[in-house]
């Protein structure tokens, strides 16, 4: 008995020595661990399954796409320049066809080399497109793909259903991240969504539901050795707790900081704030029925909004309102398109002309959905009162309660998923949109002028940039004139960081921790 205990002790000791020796390389690790305090974690890391902001800020670090959108090309974080990703080059074969040459030697998290089989599998019908995909939302962005033909181990051809001038942008954007086919097929969807295998700079180490998700460096990353040893996303739902943890040194970055906390963070010497105006527009839907049936009333509503005052009061003047439903980062940005006008006198005249007599206009909004939307609504209610509009504010628990019968104005946001009207304007307001086809509330349907929808067809099918640009400018003008919606501003996203962390946010919710956008120390990146 005694001997066996001794032997056991010896075994334990030996184990301890071996363990400490194995631990040596870890001790030699000179890269820091990064901890990010997030409001919540997604339920899945399958990149086509969850595409909300909570998910993409993590999955962007796990996967790469064939073509990469270089958000930092002009230093703004919103640039739309396309650069090689997993593909080192690509060529247009015709209007519907593109050939890609993959980088050689790119390693997945499990050690497999990237081949065209992985690309073909990632875009296969049944994953994100097709008759019964696991996730429907990807269809919106992937459905243009007809089929994929691997030409050899490193060359692959992608064919779209229709002529597609935006194919490069699509492939650089949502849903086109490449997964490891062997892993996916071996472990299955259920396991893969918890521990996916991509080519990104970090790989999943441990995920404790509701608590944290830990990623560790993928040292074979084709874009260079990751600069942090690990990244842990820790769930901290309460803003004040996120800030407190940042101050006390538990976290390095905290997300979703409301604008009114910026001054607090700046008051600490070792903290800083990174802000970005998102590729997203807060808009109002003006439902064309009842008191808003006359478009002059809708135009007056838009003319009565002092957008600059809203931006200054709510967003410290740090964001902007685009000129029309577009972004400056669009390749065909209509620079000369006029700003949204604030003109109370003109608004009053239009209301008089329309014979508006103080009929009640109901503005309903779901609470805690769009940042500062209640504050904006209260301010606008006052602005509208000054031009004689009788707007009643009705806050509700959620958006679906807000959109019940009897509402005339609804807040909405439009994300510009890629920098083109096809990334936002067409899907949100075009002829196939809910705005033009409201089955539940037919009276709210916008019967758009035929010309507006003809212009949309040009935007979708034309391969001529000048023709598209002219069509877009005309469509934007019709949209402003019809005033079934109007843009308020693009919101800001604010991150708080320790000063030693050099990292820049992007206009989409991606958090990019690739080596070129994450360094530590006093030097700035």
């Amino acid at each position, binding site marked *: 008995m005694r001997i066996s205990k001794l032997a056991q002790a010896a075994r334990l000791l030996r184990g301890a020595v071996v363990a400490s020796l194995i631990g040596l390389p870890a001790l030699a690790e000179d890269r820091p661990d990064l901890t990010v305090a997030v409001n*919540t974690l997604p*339920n*899945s890391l399958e990149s086509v399954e969850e*595409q*909300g902001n909570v998910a993409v800020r993590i999955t962007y670090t796990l996967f790469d796409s064939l073509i990469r959108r270089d958000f930092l090309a002009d230093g703004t974080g919103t640039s739309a320049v396309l650069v090689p990703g997993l593909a080192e080059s690509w060529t247009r074969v015709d209007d519907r066809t593109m050939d890609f040459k993959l980088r050689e030697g790119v390693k997945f998290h499990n050690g497999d080399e990237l081949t065209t089989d992985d690309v073909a599998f990632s875009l296969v019908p049944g994953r994100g497109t097709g008759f019964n995909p696991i996730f*429907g*939302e990807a*269809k*919106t962005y992937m459905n243009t793909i007809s089929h994929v033909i691997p030409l050899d181990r490193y060359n692959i051809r992608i064919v779209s259903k229709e002529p597609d001038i935006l194919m490069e942008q699509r492939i650089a954007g949502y849903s086109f991240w490449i997964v490891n086919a062997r892993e996916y097929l071996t472990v299955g969807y259920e396991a893969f*969504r918890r521990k996916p295998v991509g080519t990104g700079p970090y790989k999943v180490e441990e995920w*404790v*539901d*509701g*608590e*944290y998700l830990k990623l560790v460096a993928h040292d074979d990353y084709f874009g260079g050795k990751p600069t942090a040893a690990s990244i842990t996303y*820790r*769930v*901290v*739902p*309460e803003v*004040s*707790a996120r800030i*407190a*943890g940042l*101050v*006390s*040194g*538990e976290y390095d970055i905290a997300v979703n900081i409301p604008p009114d906390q910026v001054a607090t963070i700046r008051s600490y010497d070792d903290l800083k704030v990174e802000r970005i105006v998102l590729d997203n527009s807060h808009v109002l839907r003006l439902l064309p029925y009842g008191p808003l049936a006359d478009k002059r009333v809708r135009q007056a509503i838009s003319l009565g909004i002092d957008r600059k005052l809203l931006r200054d009061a709510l967003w410290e003047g740090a964001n902007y309102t685009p000129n029309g439903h577009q972004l400056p980062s669009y390749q065909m940005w209509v620079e000369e398109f006029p700003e949204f006008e604030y003109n109370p006198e003109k608004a009053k005249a239009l209301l008089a002309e329309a014979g508006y007599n103080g009929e009640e206009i109901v503005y309903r909004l779901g609470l805690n*959905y769009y940042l500062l939307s209640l504050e904006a609504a209260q301010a606008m209610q006052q602005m509208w009162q000054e031009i004689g509009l009788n707007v009643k504010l009705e806050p509700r*628990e*959620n*958006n*679906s*309660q807000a*959109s019940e019968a009897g509402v005339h104005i609804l807040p*909405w*946001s*439009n*994300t510009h998923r890629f920098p083109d009207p096809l990334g*936002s304007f067409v*899907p*949100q307001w075009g002829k*196939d*949109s*809910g705005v033009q*086809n409201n*089955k539940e509330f037919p009276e709210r349907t916008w019967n758009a002028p035929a010309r507006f929808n003809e212009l949309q067809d040009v935007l979708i099918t034309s391969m001529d940039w000048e023709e598209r640009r002219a069509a877009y400018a005309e469509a934007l003008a019709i949209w402003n004139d019809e005033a079934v919606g109007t843009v308020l501003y693009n919101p800001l996203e604010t991150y708080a960081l320790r000063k030693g962390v050099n990292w820049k946010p992007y206009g989409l919710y991606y958090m990019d921790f690739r080596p070129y956008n994450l360094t530590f120390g006093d030097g700035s990146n």
Partner: protein
Amino acid sequence: MRFVAVKLLRSAVTMWLVITFVFVVLRISGDPTDILLPDDVAQEVREFYRVKWGLDQSLWQQYLAYWKALSTGDFGVSLRAGLPAWDMVMERAPKTLLLGLCGLAMALFIGIPLGVIAAQYQGSALDRGVMSFAVFGFSMPNFFLGIILILVFSLHLRWLPSSGSGTLAHLVMPAFTLGTAFAAQIARFTRSAMIDVSSRAYMRTARSKGAGPLRRVVSHAFPNAVVPIVTIIGLKVGELIGGAVVVETVFAWPGLGRLVTIAVANRDLALVQAILILIAATMILTNLIVDLMYGWLDPRVRDARNAAGHRREARA
């Protein structure tokens, strides 16, 4: 036996009411596709999910389908996570239980002695001091106390982690926050129960037979005062399982309270139901245990029940 059977029948009806009520309220007060999908998603995609989640069927069909699944022990699948609802609940339950029990222990540890002391020194400055604490502790909102603690112990002193649940140190502030309000309630109940028994005849007897103050409190007064305290603890245990929604959110404690908040906001029916069934079952069970404990703690209750049983038998 009959007593337990009636209780169980009542419990089953309560359970049915809980499930039905939650089902109807959640279903008519928001569409999960509006809440779970991005706000600017295409109509076609919305329809896809309505069919996938069975929301295209009538409320009545959905209700029957839910019961049919439930009768086979299937609590359904969370819409948002795509995981079995019951598994998700069971994963979180231990954390909530740990926090709840620590909070309860802290409450008892602080509340009972304070209540006894206040009763002993009734009317004195000490009594007023303890009762002021009780009012303060009870009226202080959880989230406020929680944030104050974070400010002091995480931000300034840097002694304790501000949130999370990894170590024992993580447990201190949430358990204290949770325990404070409850301690205050227990102190008040203990005080009034102790004062109530202190004028009873058996206390005079104890004094006259020469028992010292400590012995009088511990052996004579407290056992008699314990019944109302057990009642309030019984009620609270159910609440503790329900999770300290606010405390769990402030301290990012990964328990049921946080899960249910998110699930309700998302109208994630299967998940909300699974949690509420667990909470209702715990409430019912603790009430049953408390009822049974009365008999054990107070022989008079047991005798009365037995006598009633005998009377019924005699009539039969």
